[in-house]
Each structure stands twice: as C-alpha cells, then as structure tokens.
C-alpha cells in the first residue's frame, strides 16, 4: 500500500491516548483516491497500522455532519434540525460513492447546512434549510445553474 497520505480529517481536538484504547485518523490516499483509517495505540506510532476504511464511511460522514453542528453552536447560529441532518447524511453517502469531493460542510447562517462539492472541476453547492427548502447550484466556469428543489428533485439531480 502506498503510504503517501494527506491528513484530511484531522480532529480538532485529538482524543488523549489511553492505555488499551485504539484511536484513529481518517486520511485520504492521494494515489488511490480512497479514504483510509490510521489506527494507533499508545504503544504504536501514528501511521504504523493502516487498515481499510471499508465499513467506516458512515462514521466519517457522521463526523463531518457533527462538525457542522458544532460550528453552528460555537457561532450561535440557528442549529440545523434533525431532518436537515438526516438528509445531509443521506446525500453525503450517495455523492461520496459517485466520486464527488467534499470541499466544505458548514452551517448556514439562515439555519441549515451548506455542502460544497467538486467533481471533474465543476463546483456544486447544496443548501439544506431548516424549513425544508433545498437549493442546488452548479457552476462550470462562468456558467451557473441553480434550482429550488424538494428532496425527490435533489436526488434526481445528483443521480
């Protein structure tokens, strides 16, 4: 396995190492374009124990969504509601499997979550609002298309 990796999802506050507890970082293998998990324990140095990320995708998505939630709390923004969180989770699962790269996941100042993605150099924005509205925007160079969608319409757009 090629070990040149980028620490993509380095936790803000890495958990303190405890005896017998396995900690991990999710990383991206620049050659294989896959996410991998580095696990380590107090007895191992970071990067010694590579494992497949198969099956851990959900945990990674949960962390990304949790991060957006935390940021909303820190900046006293309207907290994204459960429906938005569930929908964000479902959309992330779908788009990650389709080769979209996640640029940003942030809380929206208007209440909700903004996903910003890239695929083949085309920029995508999906904004989920707490009131149920969804905006889908696609930018390719100077050309922009934008849609007000419902859940069904969004899944049609992202295939």
């Amino acid at each position, binding site marked *: 396995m090629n070990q040149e990796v980028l620490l993509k999802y380095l936790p803000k506050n890495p958990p303190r190492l405890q005896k017998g507890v396995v900690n991990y970082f999710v990383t991206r293998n620049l050659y294989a374009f896959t996410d991998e998990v580095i696990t380590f324990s107090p007895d191992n140095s970071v990067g010694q124990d590579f494992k497949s990320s198969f099956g851990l995708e959900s945990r990674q998505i949960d962390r990304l969504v949790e991060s957006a939630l935390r940021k909303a709390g820190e900046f006293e923004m309207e907290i994204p509601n459960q429906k938005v969180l569930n929908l964000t989770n479902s959309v992330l699962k779908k788009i990650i499997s389709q080769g979209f790269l996640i640029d940003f996941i942030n809380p929206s100042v208007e209440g909700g979550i903004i996903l910003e993605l890239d695929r083949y150099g085309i920029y995508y924005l999906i904004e989920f609002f707490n009131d149920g509205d969804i905006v889908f925007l696609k930018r390719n160079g100077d050309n922009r298309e*934008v849609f007000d969608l419902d859940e069904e319409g969004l899944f049609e757009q992202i295939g």
Partner: protein
Amino acid sequence: MVIIEKFLIWMKKVFSSKSGESKLRVSNSICDSLRIPSHLHRNGRAIDDEFGEELIYRRFLAPGLNSDWLKSRQLSSSIFEVKNDSCNRSKYSNSPHDVLYNVRIEDEGKHYLSWGILSINSKAFSLFTFQVNGTTRTFSLKLSHDPLDCMFPHSEIIVLEAGIRIDTSKPKSVKAVIRDYLITECEIVKFPS
C-alpha cells in the same frame, strides 16, 4: 453609558418603530463614545452615489479553521450572507479595517475586530445572466451609498432585475446564485483571528 445616550437610544428605537427608519441624528459625541474614528463620522456630508473604480469591503465571520472555508483560492459560500447587504466603500475609508467598527449604539462599542474582511472591486457590479429553475434571468448589482451617522462609507448592495430592485429572499435560489457570483469576485483582505 451616560443617561442621555440611553435616552437617545430609546428615542431612536421609538422613531424606528414608527417610521421604519430613524430620522434621529446621532451626534459625534456618541460616535466618539462608541470609539469610532472621526474620519468615519458623517458630519453632515452628502450622499455620494458616484462609484468609480473602488473597492468594497465586507466583514465576515467564518466558523472553524481556515480550511473549513478556504481551499486553494476557493472561498466557501457559507461566509457570505446576502441578507446582510452592508459594506463599506474604499473611497471614504482610511483602511479596510474600518468595516470592523460596530455602529449599533445598543452594542456599546463591541466591535468586530476578530472578524475577517473581504474586498470586491466595484467593477464586478455589472450585468450577469444565470439559469434559475430552468429559466434564463439577467440580474444586475448596484451599489448604493447609505451613510450612517457614525459610518459615512457605509453602502448597500442592491440586486436589480430589469432595472427593478428585487427581494432576494425568495426564491432562495436567486440569493444563492448571487452569493455564488459575489464570492467568486472576492479577495481576502484579512483573515479572522
């Protein structure tokens, strides 16, 4: 804060609630008490709606680490709020940092010193065309000088369609696409600290 200033705040609120906007002038002493530099005070200066080639400054608050909203030269749309269309123009600013002063009297001089600053060239405010819900629509952005008593450079970004000012809150797609247009025209002047 001294009693007279509190009284003026109360008066300002009363006027605002009755007329929709305050007609009450805030004195330079109140601007001074908010620790806003004198070059930013209006001092009776007239509105200047002639925007030549100048820069427009906006403050922004970005959650998380820089990498949460900046990647290469790509800025996250999350840091640009269209609902808040306030900005400062460079023509009447001594420094981009002037946009970090908080002129709300009720906030008693709590400025936004840790916030970041974006700049946009006024040349970006021109006609542009987008596909909105499958329909081609042409918008234009206009700058309007809207001086405040303690912040003379204060201006607003106005969105027009066919020459008529539109409400960008609905549909949400219009707001999103205008925000996307503006964010791609922005440069970072100061990172949040």
